[in-house]
């Protein structure tokens, strides 16, 4: 049975396939399923997944259309790199009717993590000798065939890494807005608005560089993978551009006040770890440079759906942080920074204001504490969460009446403050 274009995979089908592949109640593990025995491909679209049976069909169908419409003259393949999902992701993926051949690869049973999926993917890209690779998330609901074009075409021109540029709601992607974008921009000098976008393109030859990098870590093996790949590309001086996707990224929504723990630790931990590794590079970077933009002519830009934020939870979590993590903050924060935090603790929720320069000082203190191993990594990074949530609350209040575009301007101004404070970071990093 094949799942055709536009069809919703049937749950019953998944159960039948799962039973067929069972052996004594134990599901058979297959590291790779390559039904068409593909040995070489110039262009790859990869979809990492873990238990995405309900959502993977749509991005696969859109990727197939994109490949056929815009890369029809290149040998191509769609690869699902999976964490041995037990919900039938593999079966659904392989059953989707497509004109592009498909390959399924999986980590060993029990091995989870998005980064581990990518490690398998890198090996496969090297085996296939692929020239260009586009990655899209398995839970995407807004992907269109021309996303594949915009992320893929620059790879066959002069660009080695293509980051996505979507219009996002001002409260979507708060880790990106508060930490990843301003820090990566000020550290490495490239203005890549979505450095952890999840949908991006890269030269196939970068796969070997990724495989050989000695900066791989447990965080990278999980959600740290996206920021790791972007940062390594910057450090390799790979020409980077951004592709305008025209539509907002619509996927499973995340509440900024919801459970952040592991993802926050892995993304921020990876950024801090890369700071340690790449000090010789970033200490020489001054200000920042924009990138080329690809993918215009899509007509009117769609506005993203609203993201609701529970301000009370953000406020509460900040206040709880003093009791829970006060000892850590006292040890790692500079005295003035700690005093300032105490000051803003006294503010009303409705007038809450977290100054940008204070946020920069907090991040500098945490990055140095991470480097100097002043506290266990997990607890150290967890203790940053309440402060980050209060910074988010301040952003939500300040941008409440702003349009998406005005909120972008606000973030840009914060980034300039990050860049202007770079010399302070370098001084502090060197213990002066």
């Amino acid at each position, binding site marked *: 049975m094949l799942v055709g274009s536009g069809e919703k995979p049937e749950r019953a089908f998944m159960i039948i396939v799962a039973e067929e592949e069972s052996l004594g109640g134990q599901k058979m593990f297959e590291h790779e399923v390559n039904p068409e025995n593909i040995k070489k491909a110039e262009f790859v679209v990869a979809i990492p997944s873990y238990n995405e049976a309900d959502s993977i069909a749509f991005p696969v169908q859109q990727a197939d259309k994109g490949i056929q419409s815009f890369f029809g003259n290149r040998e191509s393949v769609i690869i699902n790199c999976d964490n041995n999902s037990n919900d039938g992701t593999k079966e659904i993926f392989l059953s989707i009717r497509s004109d592009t051949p498909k390959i399924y690869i999986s980590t060993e049973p029990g091995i989870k993590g998005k980064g581990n999926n990518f490690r398998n993917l890198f090996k496969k890209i090297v085996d296939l000798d692929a020239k260009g690779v586009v990655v899209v998330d398995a839970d995407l609901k807004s992907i269109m065939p021309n996303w594949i074009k915009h992320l893929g075409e620059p790879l066959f021109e*002069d660009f080695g890494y293509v980051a996505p540029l979507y219009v996002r709601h001002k409260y979507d992607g708060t880790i990106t807005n508060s930490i990843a974008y301003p820090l990566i921009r000020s550290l490495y000098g490239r203005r890549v608005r979505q450095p952890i976008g999840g949908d991006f393109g890269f030269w196939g030859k970068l796969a070997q560089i990724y495989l050989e990098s000695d900066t791989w870590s447990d965080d990278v093996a999980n959600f740290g993978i996206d920021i790791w790949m972007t940062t390594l590309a910057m450090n390799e001086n790979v020409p980077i551009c951004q592709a305008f996707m025209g539509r907002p990224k619509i996927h499973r929504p995340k509440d900024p006040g919801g459970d952040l723990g592991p993802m926050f630790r892995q993304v921020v931990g990876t950024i801090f770890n890369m700071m340690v590794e790449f000090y010789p590079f970033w200490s020489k970077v001054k200000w920042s440079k*924009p990138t*080329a933009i690809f993918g*215009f002519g899509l007509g009117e830009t769609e506005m993203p759906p609203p993201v609701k934020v529970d301000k009370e939870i953000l406020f509460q979590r900040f206040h709880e942080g003093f009791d829970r993590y006060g000892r850590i903050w006292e040890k790692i924060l500079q005295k003035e920074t700690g005093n300032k935090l105490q000051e803003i603790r006294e503010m009303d929720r409705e007038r809450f204001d977290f100054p940008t320069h204070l946020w920069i000082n907090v991040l500098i203190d945490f990055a140095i504490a991470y480097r100097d191993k002043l506290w266990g990594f997990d607890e150290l990074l967890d203790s940053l969460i309440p402060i980050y949530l209060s910074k988010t609350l301040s952003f939500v209040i300040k941008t409440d009446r702003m349009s998406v*575009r005005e909120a972008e*301007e606000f973030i840009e101004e914060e980034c300039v403050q990050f860049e202007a404070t770079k010399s302070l970071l370098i001084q502090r990093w060197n213990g002066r």
Partner: protein
Amino acid sequence: MAKILVVDDEEHIRLLYSEELSEAGYEVITAADGYKLTERIEKEKPDLVILDIKMVDYNGLDLLQEIRNKFYNLPVILCTAYDTFKEDIKSIAADFYVIKSFDLTELKNKIAMALEAEIPST
């Protein structure tokens, strides 16, 4: 001495920028439109381009795209009389933008920042 190419279809702006920026120690060359702009850049090799967004026969944002695709790291500062251009996502490919004014303090600051920006080669 850094060389700056000013692209603007208004003569008085070209004159103003030429005088003030020359006094500030820059070598200034000018263009009255975007005709064969990338060829001109290739020939003149400016260190920075100041680009008017709205010219009679040329859209500065389209010219910006051409420049950015061909000269990956060349700093470009957009100049405009209106800030509505920010609605166009293409504008983020510029290093900076400034609203046109007879006081060039902000423009000079942005020029200094753009020329100082440096990403080392590995």
